[in-house]
Structures are given as structure tokens and as C-alpha cells.
């Protein structure tokens, strides 16, 4: 099978490519850019005129709900949503039911993704058994089963000795530790940012210190153990400053932010909008600007979706009783394009933060258009306007605060290993 994608603006930041040219695919692999290789006759030609041809997006954090919570989403339903969003690689955290703390569950997740065939799914293994924070997992076995890192998902490891041992053991097996930075005691029963809005609404708050205390403790253990750490979804400017300093000191740390933390703040909670119930919570305007600056400065190297599909009932309760999270795969690219429009990043920089940079954090070969690479490709029209509505959402979860937002930039085609898995009709 030979495919030519022609007339598109091919942007591959990893190889510093940004020009209108053709891209050639043979048997699911990229074989040439620019001129056709000798003897190439396309079976299929895709016209990408006025569109951008980018590596397929790599999402560092998407909850697919399978196994265990299929009423919220399945690997098939959510990877199909990913394809609509131009995402070809998804990293899923281990907080499924059962938890990904054994090779069997890790293999099941990948097998189901392969069967569905819409996107590649790479799991994170649990850092501690059952995520209980008491005993470390068989990380060697998890790695052999395809886990690209280890994480305790949303559950902070309260015992710093266990955290230290887990980090040492992960480092032994060259696994990155993904940390959701939250001090459980300080966050308590909080559900929103502890600030002016939460105080007014009488909603229990999660102070910024819940994040900075956990970041500081983790960084101290990075110095001690030399383990590689990635902070998922940093939410505050102050936490980012700490990570920035550690990076400057040469510590092996990276971090990402979610797309929604770049667009929403605590103000969006007014009226008890449960669609804005997320964890870590939406913080202040100052924090949002800090995160945006962090991306521009290169401190934050990836933007993730933190996709969390829910059934409608999960959001139909008084605010504190609702479940946190946003169904976010289909808005990842347009929300990232929006910060390009806001002048924070250039398009190639934005693509970097959604492709080869997250792929590097996962240590996988993805997110580039290098010759010989698997042809995972996202073609999008950066100028097309569209409105997000519940009916057209592919994800089983329609829980998003961005409903009825006008989006700019829409995926027109997604290829996974050279096969079209989504096409705009």
C-alpha cells in the first residue's frame, strides 16, 4: 500500500521541517518527504491543501476507563475519540479496575487497543501495589509487559520512605516515575482551589501548598535517588517555579500541563459549574498565565488532555459530590491552537508540545515524521471554525465545560500506521 499526502504544510519539529511538500508512505511507514522515492506509485493520494501535516499527537494522560468502568468509556470508544482529535498515541494511568499493577492488566489494555485499531495505547504501571502506597510493584515485569513508566495515579504516596524506595527501584529499571503532586493531608476534602472564589462559594479548598509541598518533597527525593520524575498536570505558578529551578540545576525532571488549565480559572466555577470540577483544581488567572509562560519558556514540555469521560450522572449532583474530570480528547488540538492564537507559542512549538516532546518523556518512538517511522499522522485545517456540541462528540463522555465554544482548527484526517482511522466528512 503506497500513499502520497500532497500539498500540505508538513511540520515535523523534531527534524526541523516546516514547508509545503509531499509525504510518502509505503506499507505503513514514512519512506520519503519532498520527492517520491524511485519507483513510487501511489495507490492513494491525499490532498492536504491549506492544511497542516503533523506527526500524530501523543497524549501523556488519558483515562480510558477500561477495564472496570465501561459505563464511562471503553478503550474502543475512547481511542476512536482520540482519532477524531488527531491523537495516535495515548498514555493511560494505572487507576483502572483492576489496577494496572500486574502484567496481565497492562497486556489486556494494549491488546484491546490493538483490536480496536484507532490509536496506540501505552500504559503506566502502578508505582505501588493496588496504589495503596504500602508496597512497591513488580516494575521489571510491568516494563516487560509494555508499561512505559510508573505512577500512583491520583493517589499521593503519603509515606515518603515508600516513595523513596519506589523511586530507587524505578530508577534501577530505568522507568520514569509520573507524579501527581498533591499532599493528601493539605488537600483534605477539598474540591476547588483555595482562593477567593472557593471561599465565596463555601467549597472546601485545595491550597497551592498541597501541590508545592508534594513537589518539594519529590524533588528532594530526586536529588537523593537520581530517579527520573515527570510531574503530571502542574496547576500552580509556584510549583512550576520549583520545577524550573530543579531543571536549571540539572535534575532529571520534566512536567506537563493540561489543556484546560491553560484556558480556565477558578472564576469559571461560579454558579457551581460542575463541568469545571477537575483535579488538580483550576487556579487563579496568575497561575494560568504562569503555566502559559512555562510552556513558552520550555519549562513545561508537553500539553496533555487529562481525558476523563463520565456518564451524565457523575456530574449531576451538588458540586462537591460530582466526579472530577473533563472529556478532553477532542478538544486537545483546538485548545492548543488557541494558545497559538493568543501569541504564547508558534504552531511548530505547539506541535512539539503535543508530539515528539511527550514521546521523549515516554521514551517511545513516536511524534516525528522521520524516514522509517510508523506513519502516525494528523492532518488538520488550522483555520476551520467549528462549535463543540454534545451530539457530535465521539467520546462516550460528554462532560466538558467547552460545550458550545467556538473552536478554531479541526482535524480532517488521522492515520495510524498509514491506515486512515478518522476522516472528516
Amino acid at each position, binding site marked *: 500500500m503506497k500513499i502520497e499526502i500532497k500539498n500540505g504544510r508538513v511540520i515535523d519539529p523534531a527534524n526541523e521541517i516546516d514547508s509545503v511538500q509531499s509525504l510518502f508512505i509505503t506499507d505503513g511507514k514514512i519512506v520519503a518527504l519532498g520527492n517520491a522515492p524511485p519507483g513510487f506509485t501511489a495507490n492513494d493520494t491525499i490532498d492536504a491543501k491549506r492544511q497542516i501535516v503533523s506527526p500524530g499527537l501523543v497524549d501523556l494522560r488519558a483515562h480510558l476507563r477500561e477495564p472496570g468502568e465501561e459505563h464511562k468509556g471503553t478503550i474502543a470508544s475512547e481511542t476512536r475519540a482520540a482519532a477524531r482529535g488527531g491523537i495516535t498515541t495515548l498514555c493511560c494511568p494505572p487507576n483502572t479496575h483492576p489496577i494496572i499493577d500486574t502484567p496481565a492488566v497492562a497486556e489486556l489494555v494494549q491488546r484491546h487497543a490493538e483490536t480496536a485499531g484507532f490509536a496506540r495505547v501505552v500504559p503506566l504501571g502502578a508505582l505501588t501495589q493496588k496504589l495503596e502506597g504500602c508496597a512497591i510493584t513488580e516494575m521489571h515485569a510491568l516494563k516487560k509487559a509494555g508499561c512505559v513508566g510508573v505512577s500512583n495515579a491520583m493517589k499521593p504516596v503519603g509515606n515518603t520512605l515508600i516513595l523513596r524506595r519506589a523511586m530507587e527501584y524505578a530508577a534501577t529499571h530505568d522507568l520514569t516515575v509520573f507524579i501527581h503532586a498533591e499532599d493528601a493531608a493539605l488537600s483534605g476534602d477539598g474540591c476547588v482551589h483555595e482562593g*477567593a472564589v472557593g*471561599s*465565596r462559594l463555601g467549597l472546601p479548598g485545595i491550597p497551592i501548598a498541597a501541590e508545592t509541598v508534594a513537589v518539594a518533597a519529590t524533588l528532594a527525593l530526586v536529588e537523593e535517588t537520581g530517579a527520573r520524575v515527570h510531574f503530571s498536570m502542574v496547576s500552580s505558578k509556584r510549583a512550576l517555579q520549583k520545577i524550573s529551578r530543579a531543571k536549571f540545576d540539572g535534575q532529571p525532571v520534566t512536567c506537563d500541563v493540561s489543556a484546560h488549565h491553560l484556558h480556565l480559572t477558578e472564576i469559571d466555577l461560579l*454558579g*457551581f459549574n460542575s463541568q469545571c470540577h477537575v483535579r488538580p483544581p483550576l487556579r487563579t488567572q496568575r497561575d494560568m498565565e504562569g503555566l502559559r509562560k512555562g510552556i513558552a519558556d520550555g519549562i513545561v514540555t508537553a500539553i496533555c488532555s487529562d481525558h476523563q469521560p463520565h456518564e451524565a450522572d457523575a456530574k449531576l*449532583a451538588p*458540586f*462537591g*459530590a460530582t466526579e472530577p474530570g473533563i472529556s478532553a480528547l477532542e478538544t486537545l488540538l483546538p485548545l492548543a491552537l488557541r494558545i497559538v492564537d493568543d501569541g504564547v507559542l508558534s504552531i511548530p512549538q505547539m506541535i512539539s508540545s503535543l508530539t515528539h516532546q511527550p514521546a521523549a518523556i515516554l521514551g517511545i518512538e513516536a511524534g516525528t515524521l522521520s524516514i522509517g517511522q510508523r506513519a502516525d499522522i494528523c492532518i488538520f485545517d488550522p483555520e476551520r471554525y467549528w462549535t463543540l456540541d454534545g451530539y457530535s462528540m465521539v467520546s462516550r463522555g460528554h462532560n466538558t465545560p467547552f460545550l458550545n465554544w467556538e473552536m478554531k482548527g479541526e482535524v480532517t484526517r488521522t492515520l495510524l500506521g498509514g491506515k486512515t482511522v478518522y476522516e472528516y466528512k
Partner: protein
Amino acid sequence: MKKKNRLQLDDNGKLKHFLTIEGLNRQMLIDILDTAESFTSVTEQNIKKVPLLRGKTIVNLFFEASTRTRTTFELAAKRLSADVLNINIQASATTKGETLLDMLRNLEAMHCDMFVVRHADSGAAHFIAQHAAPHISVINAGDGQHAHPTQAMLDMFTIRREKGEFHKLNVAIVGDIRHSRVARSQIHALSMLGVEDIRIIAPRTLIPTEPDAFGVHVYHDLREGLRDVDVVIMLRLQKERMSGGSLPSEHEYFQLYGLTEEKLALAKPDVTVMHPGPINRGVEIDSEVADGPRSVILRQVSHGIAVRMAVMSMAMQSHLATSTGDVRR
């Protein structure tokens, strides 16, 4: 903010639900106080009933224990000639399968007209108002740490009766402001009615985050904060704050923030002492003060009935107006 406004008011700007003081203008608050004033005569006459809400069914939906608030709501509804249904639900019951929304649908199916809601979650009354059928009025009888607007209005009613004008007053609120829905609603009501000097007095563990957003002056010293105040509102100290690490002991709290005759002497001579009840004698207030001549604590309770009658009748009138409109159409 705008959305909140719309939720509470109908298209003609009349009160439809009563969820929070925020978003209501001064005239609306004064209307509530004036209407309540007209009802005080009802509560004092021999036959304590007016037929305003005859044939209407009001459901007291209490997900959190309460005696005083529930009984005054019940009395208020009965004096308006409404039928009253009391439902007490332990918060855990709804988590055992039936959702809050299921319960609402069931009550709606029984043709109820008004829900008076108390719930441990902030925003619960908003949630119910958003999802209730359009003919139903929702009155917030306290949601989590967010709002308790009828309590605040009965306090405003009491202050107006005792003091007259609002704008000249210095008002101090003392105690656990951080966790208090009563204090939040009081602060919004006081500032909307024109009180310029609103003080909150407590140790930092009981002061809300970013108090500046409320437009209040913060004091940590009771003596300093009481200087020249016209009204002092003491808040009930919940026992769980003691064990939660917010305070070291009842003893030290009483020493520093308990209202005694001696400390009260720093306030204006005609100071009014208020408390939403139930009081902890010897914790936040000395018995001598609570039972003393400047205390209006019991008067607050009886005013509660008139204010709740006012709010219920106003909210129901908005619905009567819309439903007759529907018929004509």
C-alpha cells in the same frame, strides 16, 4: 455571577428561588424586610393564619439535622395556610442508590410547589433549583458552607428593628467565619444594605481565604475589634473545629474570643448582641451576656417566622404570576 442572578429571579426581576443573598439588589432585600414587617402582626394575633398559600404544598427537605430552622419554616408555611411535608434524610441515604435527582423527580410527581432545602454540600440548593420543574420554587435553608440567606435576612430584620438605618452602623461578626454559611450570607446582606464597617473577628485558622474579596475588615483581637461597634454577632463554634486542629481548646477560645460583659463594655453602650443559635454557653458567649439586656437572641428566633413567611410568599407569588400567564396563553 449573571447566571446566578437569572436563576433566582424570574423574567420580571421577581424572586423565584431564594438561594443566596449574592446577586439580589438592595431594593429586593428591603422588600423582603418590609413584607416580613407586615407579617409580624399575623404572628402576634390570635388566629395566626393568612390564606396566601392555601392549597399549596411545601416540602421541607432536610438532608442535615436542624430543629430551629425546620420548625420556623414549618410554622411560617402553616401560617400562610400551606400544607407542609417534612422529609428528613440522612445524607447517606441518597448515596445508597437513589440520587438527589431521583428524589426530586418523585416529589415533583406528587405535585409539590416549593422545596425548602438544607444540605451539607455547598451549592445543593442551586443544583436543585437548576433541575427542578419550572413550577417549583426552591428556598435555601442552608447549603454546606455557602449560604443561609433566610438566617441572614432575619438577622437584618432584627438589626433594622433595633437600630433603624444600616449605613451608620459598625457590625462585628465573631467566630468561625471560615466554615460559616451564616457569616457569608450576613456579610453579603450587610454590605448590600449599606453597612460600611463590617468586621470579622477570629484567629487566622477561622478566617476565610482572601477575606478582602468579601469587603470586610479583619481583626484577630476581640477587644480591638469590638471598639465602638453597634452590633455584635456571635457565631456558634462547631465542636468538630476543636478536634480538627483549628483551635487548641475551648478554654483558650473562650478566653480570647468569648463574649463577656467586660469585653462588651468596649462596644457602644447600646450595642445589640446577636447569635444565630444554638448557643454554646461558656464557649463563645457568657450566659450573663446571652441572657442580658442587650441580647436579642430570642427575638431573632421569632423574627425568623415572619421573614420566612415573607420569602415563601414572595417566591410563590412569582410562580402564581407566571402560571396565570401560561393559562392565558
